[in-house]
């Protein structure tokens, strides 16, 4: 396994940064352009994953396992966030019969 993986390395660190930037921006575009609450939630998951990948790449770059521990904590946080957020969406759907977020625009004031 290690020999196979070592042959596949040598990608510059800046390319990992570019990949994470692009995927994070795709998540931002998803939050800005969609009105379905579940798709907005999935875009947030995309942003979290882009950050996870970048943390892992920097952890390998600086030879420090703390970065991968942080990624593990972010995954635990994402699981908790998804559970609470999806239950909020279910409650909103039960009250308004829709998951359009524009129904909730009175929360602004």
């Amino acid at each position: 396994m290690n020999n196979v993986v070592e042959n596949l390395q040598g990608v510059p660190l800046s390319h990992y940064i570019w990949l994470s930037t692009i995927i994070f921006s795709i998540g931002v575009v998803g939050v800005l352009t969609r009105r379905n609450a579940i798709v907005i939630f999935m875009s947030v998951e995309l942003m979290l994953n882009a950050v996870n990948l970048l943390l892992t790449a920097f952890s390998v770059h600086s030879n420090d396992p703390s970065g991968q521990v942080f990624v593990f904590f972010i995954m635990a946080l994402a699981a908790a966030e998804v559970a609470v957020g999806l239950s909020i969406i279910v409650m909103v759907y039960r009250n308004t019969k829709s998951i359009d977020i524009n129904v909730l625009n009175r929360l602004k004031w």
Partner: protein
Amino acid sequence: MGTSVFYFVAALSILFSLMVIFSKNPIHSILYLILTFFTFTVHYVLLNAQFLAVVNFIVYMGAIMVLFLFVLMLLNLNKENEPNKSALLKIVGVIAGCCLIVTLIGSLKSVSLNDPLVLRNPNLGLVKNLGKELFGPFMLPFELSSILLLSAMVGAVLLTKKEGNI
């Protein structure tokens, strides 16, 4: 071979994440999101972070995706109440995202990080090494995250209860 595997998988992950936000049907979005997470697992394997690859596979592709699919099928969405934003707002959102990409990449251009990523310690991301780190200096955050998960579970149960039973 060499580094071309990384570029192939990176192109796949960008393509699938674009399909997540641009597909009309939310079920298709979730299926494309599963494929995106699978490409991220491949990225972790390429970085030799095997523990994170397994955790990503189990937690994201197993637990979170099942939760998304289950809620989406529970909600019984029809075609007529599928919300849609106006075209102007979509174009503005895409332009804002492109501006974000250009700004971030342009600001990172000045920092030259072009040295190739080489794994100096081959068992950096293995379970043994990460376990020593997790139960050594990160003991307190690890235990606190269990309280976080417990409170999230209690909160989810409390929120989805029918009113009047509380």
